[in-house]
Structure formats: structure tokens, C-alpha cells
């Protein structure tokens, strides 16, 4: 899509909620979806005189993420206050990190058209999340009032800022997918984009190829799905190119993605009116990270996607393509591991995962962790195929039913009477019936039209409501028509 005359420069800022029990600076629960304002205390309500105390696990997780993203871990790090008034921010300042973030200078590698590309990570810092606003009307702008739920306020976040190394919306998507996968593997975040535990802002500019000067930078806020990220960037790049072509000025601004209209819109904020007045939070003390601390975390770092991919190829003999798709999501890889532990035909498992399972999940926009088909159920279904209780074709029906209802495959087969017919006599009777009813096709086959047999098999299967063993049907037909 990118016009060869232009170069696109993209940087992403990703916020991810950490999977801690408690908030970053108080001991309230971080649990998602509680009754409004039930996970709040004087601290996270910003009441007078109440002081922040840092959650150690947040630092552990930040170090872990930093290591997984090849960052340098700071020896000295501190917290700063970022000031602005907004109803989702109870103290009117966010405790964040300004000039001494915990991690710097990392990178991750993305796969673009079969080639590896390294995207730099400028920094990772720790900060507190803002609270949730609920609007009376359809949107913030049309509501006559809003409601504040402080449950999310103070949930720990990592802000991961990429270098402006990304050159296309596709690369942006690949970066975000890879980042999500790495964060999931380290288990610092559950990265549920639907629940907002992984959120993305993008900075984008377009300049003529070879130009030394960057184009006008626009920030697009809240790109909270892979699709939105890619679509919004595509739109924005197109808008910039159009403006450049027509010699129209672009303004540096913050925009938002309108999913319904498929366009970005100016947020018309008074940019110049912001002055965050960052200064070190005097209620907190610095974090000094010894190399022993870092090494301790490095030792306990879980297997990362690349390592797991290599293991799947080595241990299970999976092709590189299968291994890379299955390991792209930690949950999927774990699902696979669980299946293979029960059923060692790795390639068969892989085929079902990469085919029906991923297709069904995508169609329903469902996370594998919420999938009703548990590994043991899938394996049970594979065994039913192996012992010829059901055919591969029937298995597709069973799979669909399992996915919808979560019932066990054996029960589905029983309930719906899907047991494969393997009785020689029963099949023979149906074969005779079909030969009788289709003299034309029989003739065709006998005169050498091989294709006609397919039609006849199909007719027998239809007659048996798909339950006849297809191999037996085939064999019997050929024998009778010889």
C-alpha cells in the first residue's frame, strides 16, 4: 500500500497491565470486573495524607519484561509525578517514571515476508493506570455527566515505547503481535486486549523517501485491537500521502480511531496547554537494582516464543510453519503441549489446531483460554477417529458441537447417533440401493469415467447420514462394479 515515493515512520507506545494481586502503590486487588469502587482505599482514592508504597512484584515483572525484550536494566531507577487534571486521576498526578526508567535500549524481532527485522525498544517504565469512566450518553462528548469507578486506578502498568523503527502498518501489527506473545510468555500480563490489559498508541509520520527530515508526527490513541492498529495506520498513512501530494499542511496532533467510520479524527485537545511538570515523587524512594536481582530473575525466566518454537520442531518434528504459528500464542502452545502429552501424534494435533480450532476461535473472537474444547476433549475425539467410532468427516461435526456446547465428544456421538457404520451387511445394503437408483453413473464408471465413483460414494454417505465408514463404502462399490 505504501507509495514507493514515501517512507512511513511508526513508533508504538504500548501499555500493559501487570498480573499482580495488588495495585502498584496500595494493597487493593487488581481483579478485573469487580463491582465499581469496591477495590479502593484511601490511597487509591487520593485522600489527604495517604502515601504510596511500591509493590515489589511490579519491579520483578518490569525486570522480567525488560530481559525478555533484550533491554538494559537500570541500576538506579526512580518514580516521578506527571501532573494533569482529569477525573480518572484521583491525585491529579500520575506516578510514572520520567528520566530514569527501569529498562532501556531493548529490541524484539519480527518476521516480515520471511525475513527477520529488529525493532528497537527505547524504554520500558512502570506507572499506575488511570480509573474507568462510564458515560451517561453514547459517548464522552454527548454525555451530560460521567461516572468514575476507581477500581482500575493504580493497577500497575508497563509502558513499552518502541523506537521509530517500524516502516509499515503490517510491521506495526507484527510488532504488537510479537510483543503480546513475549509478554504472555513471561506471564507478566494476560494481555487481554478486549479487557484493556494491553493497549496501544501509535506515532506516525510520512516523509518523501530519502528525506532527512521526518514528516509531521501524529499520535493515534487507543488502538486496542490488531485490526484497529493496522486499519488506523493504513488510513493515516493514506491521509498523510494525500496531503503531501496536494501540498496541504498536516498538523502535529493527537487523533482517535473511529472504528465504525473507518477514519481517524482529531481529538482537538489543547496540546499547548499541557505542562506535565514532572518531578521526582518525594513520597517514594529510589529503586536500586543489583545485578544479583537481575540474574535471579533471568534464571527464572520462562521459555520464550523462539525457544519454544525450536523445541516444538526438535521434539515433535513439527514443520517450522506449524511451530511458529502454534508458539505465537503462549496459550495455544500450552494447549498444544497438553494435547501432545495425551496423544503423541503431534502433526495430527497441529493440523486440528491450525485448521478448525483457530478458525473457530477467530470466527467467535474468542481467546483459547476461554475455549470450551479442553485438550483432553480434543484428544478423545482424535481417538474416536482412530478407533473408527467416527469418521474424519463426522469429527468435524463433533468438533463444531463441542466448540459450541462444551459437551464431551463421546456424549455428542451418542446423543446424535453419529457412531460410524462399519457393519459389512448394512453398508452392502445401502451400496446395492445406490447402484440400483443410479444406473447412469454406474454405466459411466464402467466405461472408464473414474470420477463417477466419487458421486456414488457420496450418495451412499448421504443415505447413511454421513455415518458409513467411507473406506468400506469405496471398497464395496468398486468390488460390486468390477
Amino acid at each position: 500500500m505504501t507509495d514507493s515515493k514515501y517512507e512511513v515512520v511508526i513508533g508504538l507506545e504500548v501499555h500493559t497491565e501487570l498480573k499482580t494481586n495488588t495495585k502498584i502503590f496500595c494493597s487493593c486487588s487488581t481483579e478485573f470486573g469487580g463491582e465499581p469502587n469496591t477495590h479502593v482505599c484511601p490511597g487509591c482514592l487520593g485522600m489527604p495524607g495517604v502515601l504510596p508504597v511500591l509493590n515489589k512484584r511490579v519491579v520483578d515483572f518490569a525486570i522480567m519484561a525488560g530481559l525478555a525484550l533484550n533491554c538494559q536494566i537500570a541500576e538506579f531507577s526512580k518514580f516521578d509525578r506527571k501532573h494533569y487534571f482529569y477525573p480518572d486521576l484521583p491525585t491529579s498526578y500520575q506516578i510514572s517514571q520520567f528520566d530514569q526508567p527501569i529498562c532501556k535500549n531493548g529490541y524484539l524481532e519480527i518476521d516480515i515476508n520471511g525475513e527477520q527485522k529488529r525493532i528497537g525498544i527505547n524504554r520500558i517504565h512502570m506507572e499506575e493506570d488511570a480509573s474507568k469512566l462510564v458515560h451517561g450518553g453514547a459517548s464522552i462528548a454527548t454525555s451530560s455527566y460521567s461516572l468514575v469507578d476507581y477500581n482500575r486506578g493504580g493497577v500497575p502498568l508497563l509502558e513499552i515505547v518502541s523506537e521509530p523503527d517500524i516502516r509499515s502498518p503490517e510491521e506495526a501489527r507484527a510488532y504488537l503481535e510479537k510483543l503480546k506473545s513475549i509478554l504472555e510468555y513471561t506471564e507478566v500480563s494476560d494481555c487481554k486486549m478486549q479487557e484493556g490489559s494491553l493497549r496501544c498508541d501509535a506515532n506516525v509520520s510520512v516523509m518523501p523517501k530519502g528525506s532527512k527530515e521526518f514528516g509531521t508526527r501524529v499520535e493515534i490513541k487507543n488502538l486496542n485491537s490488531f485490526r484497529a492498529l493496522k486499519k488506523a495506520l493504513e488510513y493515516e498513512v493514506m491521509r498523510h500521502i494525500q496531503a503531501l501530494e496536494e501540498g496541504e499542511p498536516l498538523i502535529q496532533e493527537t487523533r482517535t480511531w473511529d472504528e465504525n467510520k473507518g477514519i481517524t479524527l482529531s481529538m482537538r485537545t489543547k496540546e499547548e496547554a499541557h505542562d506535565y511538570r514532572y518531578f521526582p515523587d518525594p513520597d517514594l524512594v529510589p529503586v536500586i537494582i543489583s545485578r544479583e536481582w537481575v540474574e535471579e530473575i533471568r534464571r527464572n525466566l520462562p521459555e520464550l516464543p523462539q525457544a519454544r518454537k525450536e523445541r516444538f520442531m526438535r521434539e515433535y518434528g513439527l514443520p517450522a510453519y506449524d511451530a511458529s504459528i502454534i508458539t505465537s500464542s503462549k496459550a495455544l502452545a500450552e494447549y498444544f503441549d497438553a494435547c501432545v502429552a495425551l496423544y503423541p501424534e503431534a502433526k495430527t494435533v497441529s493440523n486440528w489446531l491450525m485448521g478448525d480450532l483457530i478458525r473457530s476461535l477467530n470466527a467467535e473472537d474468542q481467546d483459547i483460554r476461554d475455549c470450551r474444547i479442553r485438550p483432553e476433549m480434543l484428544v478423545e475425539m482424535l481417538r474416536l477417529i482412530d478407533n473408527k467410532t467416527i469418521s474424519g468427516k463426522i469429527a468435524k461435526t463433533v468438533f463444531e458441537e463441542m466448540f459450541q456446547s462444551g459437551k464431551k465428544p463421546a456424549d455428542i456421538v451418542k446423543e446424535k447417533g453419529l457412531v460410524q457404520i462399519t457393519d459389512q451387511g448394512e453398508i452392502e445394503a445401502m451400496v446395492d440401493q445406490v447402484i440400483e437408483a443410479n444406473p447412469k453413473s454406474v454405466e459411466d464408471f464402467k466405461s472408464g469415467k473414474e470420477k463417477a465413483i466419487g458421486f456414488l460414494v457420496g450418495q451412499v454417505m448421504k443415505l447413511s447420514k454421513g455415518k458409513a465408514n467411507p473406506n468400506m463404502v469405496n471398497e464395496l462399490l468398486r468390488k460390486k462394479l468390477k
Partner: protein
Amino acid sequence: MSLYEKTIHELHGMLIKKEISAEELTKDVLARMDQVEDKVKSFVFREEKEKAIAQAKGVDEKISRGEKVGPLAGIPMAYNDNICTKGIRTTCSSKMLADFVPPYDAFVAEKIGEAQSVFIGKTNMDEFGIGSSTESSFFYPTRNPWNLNLVPGGSGGGAAAAVAADEAVFALGSDILNPAAFCGVVAMKPTYGRVSRYGLAGSTSSLEQVGPVTKDVTDCALVLGAIAGHDPKDSTSAPGDVPRYDEFLTGDIKGMHIGIPKEYFGNEFDPEVKDAVLSAVKKMEELGAHVDEVSLPHTPYVMSAYHVIAAAEASSVLARYEGVRYGYRREDVPDIEALYRTTRTEGFGPAVKRRIILGTYFLSSGQIDVYYKKALQTRTLVKEDFDRAFEKYDLLVSPTCPGTAFPLGTQADDILNGTGLYTVPPCVAGIPAISLPCGLVQGLPVGLQIMGPAFAEEKILNAAFAYQQRGGFPRIKPSLSGEGK
């Protein structure tokens, strides 16, 4: 002598010997409050009498059962109104918090609760601690018990006035050295981190500490012992054990090296203040201390650093008062921005607003390095001055204030009136200091300030004790004269 005039240690002795009951004592102090509060106006909240008496009775029961009680048990006391008290209105003497009831106790309030003192009320202060005369209180100014036409000092003026007027046996507050000097009582600002700031609704983070206001040095040691200690809810709280401060009060200061910062003399509004302080120093010399002049070369920059840090931190800390969850709120506003502006414009008084704007300016882009960063660097130099001085000297002695209490309505400008000239440096450097009375000038008390290195409270207390016990300065009582309103 009436009960309400007595010290904690005197009263404790009488309580455990069952010569008096806590109930009797509490009633006596409450009666005293009834008698003088209209004149002094130390309090912004008075605990219901029945509730106070019920607390006292609880202690009496313990004593009658033969249970051991601590030195503060049954002693009527007050908190400055920036110390959060669970279920009890805590206002910081501001319209902003005029109806605010915290659902939590400050660390020090919890400690005093454990010590079983009898809570009798909350005392007045400059709004959010911004001021040095208690005149910026939203409610009313407090009067100096020595002369009701004068200010009690500030920002914690109500606490000092209440103790001076015998309306409470002791009080807790922050920023109390200057009021203690003006009101002729004892107060201590502990080392930064020695006492938890949890629940102190201050206007700064790095400058304030809660400390005792008491009638004598022994009481000061007892109260400090009760409120000091590590608090996991305050990240800046010092770890480690708390000494039994009262056990260090030997009165022996023989061989102690005392430094007189030369930069602290010569700026007095009143030369008699200097004389009073120097004659106290002389007494300490007679008691065996070696006294020498010492230089704290960065003294001229301390106030600048303080004003910048105090204003910057205030602009940040006070940003949370925006009307959404608690505190003053204007109704009938069209949008959130209007809510913020009206709430803050109407809820804060002029001194607070000025400090917030000043602090916002100091932190704004383009200014932060000129002012704020510079102030933090200056603080390092000020600290180093003290560190060097304490290599040679055990303690430093100065006036608490350059003058005595001034008339109401005359020195509203807390930044320029110079009252904090000597009490500010210990705040900036985080070191402990005590103020105790060392004489009268024209019938008004003069404060003697003794500063020490970080966590040397016991040394300071012992030097103050020696002076108080053997220096011959009597425990004097104010007359509560003057016109009042």
C-alpha cells in the same frame, strides 16, 4: 496548682498512685477549655465531653484493675487539624476540607490511641500549614495566650496555644517550633523519617514531620517516644528501633560541644532576643558544655531553597483537591473544567492559592531547572554544612525565631516576614530540633532552638533538659490578657 497546669509526668505519677483519676483530670482540662477557649480559639473541633470522659474512664478501669498503663494513658491531648482522625472531621483549617471525615487514622493518631491518651479536640492552624501566624485559617485566627492581640505563630499555632493556655496537656502538630517559641512551650521537630507521615494531610512531602508540643522537656521525650517508629505505610519512614528518650534525660552535658552558627545571629528583629539566647548558652557553658562559634556558609540560600521546594510540593500535593470524591464542591457547574476551577478557586484561601501558583510556576517547563532543581542542589549544600558542623559539634544552638510574637494582622506575608529564618534550616536538612522557652522579652516568651544531627533526638532532649532543669528558667504561665476579639 490545678490539674490542668501539670505536666504529663507529674499527672502520670498521680494517676498510677491513684491520687487522681483520669476522669477527674479530663473534666478539669475540659473545664479549663470552657473557661479560656473563647479568648484563645485554639480549637477547630472539640470532642464531645461524654466521649472524652468515657475514654478517661476506660483508663481508670485499667488502673483500678491493677493493669500497667503507659506514661500517656489518661492524659488529655489534641491533634493539629492536619492529622487525620478516623471518623472525626479533619479540615487542615481549610474551607476545602471543612466537612471532610477521613475513614482512616494517621499513624501518630493510631499510636496515641494505643498509648490511651484522652482525645479532646483538633487545633487550629494556617490553612494547609501555609503561613506563620495561624491567620490564614479558614475559621478564625488563634490568639497568643501571652497577649491576645498577638499571633500564636504558625503554621501549627493552635497546638502551641492550646498547650500554653492549659487547654490540653500536650498536642501533636507539624511546623510547631515557631509557635512553641511564640507561646512559651516546648516542641520538637524530629528527624525526617523518625515519625511516620501517614495520614498527615500536609502541603509538602519532604519538609514536614509531626512532633510533640508539651509543657516541658520530659513530656516532650515521653510523647516523642510514643509516636516515633517505623511505619510500613510511609516509604520515607526510617527503619530501626526507637530509643527510650526519657532514659537519656540525665541533665549531664559536661564536655558536650555546642556550636553557635554565626550566620544565625545579627538578623534579630529585637536585640533582646539575642541576649536571652546568649544567656541561655552561657548557662549551658556553666553546666560544662564547650561553646564555640561555627559557620553554616549556605545559610543565605536556605530560605530560597525552602520556598521553592515548599511551593513546588504544595502545588503537587494540593492538586488532589478538585471536588470529585470529597471536600468542597461547587454545585451547578456545566462541565468538569468548571468544577475544578470553581472548587479550587472557592475552596482555597489566598495564601494557599498564591503558593500553588508559585509552585506551579517553579515546576513549569523552562523554570524547573532554574528553580526546583537548583533548590534540591542547594538543599544538598545546606545538608553538607550541617554534616560538617556536626563533625565537630554535638549540637547547634540558636534562637528559634528572630523575634517574639507579633500583632495580629501585621505580618500576613509568611514568605517575607522572616519568622522561619532559623526553623526552616532543620526542615530543609531533615535534622531534628527542639524549641524551649529561655526567657521573656517585654513579657513575651523567647524560644531557644537546639539542633542536632539526624537521629540524635536523645542528645538534644538531654541538653534541653539540662538547661531547663538547671538553667533556672522557671515554667512560666501566660496571663491570657489582652483584648481578645
